[in-house]
């Protein structure tokens, strides 16, 4: 298995938390960017009830 001997020179007590932290930070960053830069995530998390409640109001404004 490739790189399997890396733990001979990298302490697992350091390397594994660094690896897990890198995955966690990268994942959090992507999801934060998605939340901050799109509108549908907030609408989706607010639930469909609000969309239903606002839909007639929007329709009324359009008339």
């Amino acid at each position: 298995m490739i790189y399997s001997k890396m733990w001979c020179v990298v302490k697992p007590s350091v390397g594994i938390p660094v690896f897990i932290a890198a995955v966690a930070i990268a994942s959090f960053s992507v999801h934060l960017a998605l939340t901050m830069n799109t509108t549908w995530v907030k609408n989706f998390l607010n639930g469909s009830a609000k969309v239903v409640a606002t839909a007639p109001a929007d329709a009324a404004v359009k008339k």
Partner: protein
Amino acid sequence: MRAVHVFCKEKTMSNSDKVWPTGLTEAESEEIHRNLIQGTQIFGMIAAFAHLLAYIYSPWLK
């Protein structure tokens, strides 16, 4: 006899009993790596399943 045995061991096992600076042997390092790869694969499968659910049940990519 013991000297011969030690000599043969060193010749044939390519020093696999050597304890490296991290306190691990090559076999132990490979075991840790195997488990880390397996954990990553399980994490990846769960993440892929979660993304499938998000794709189906949210407006993502629609």
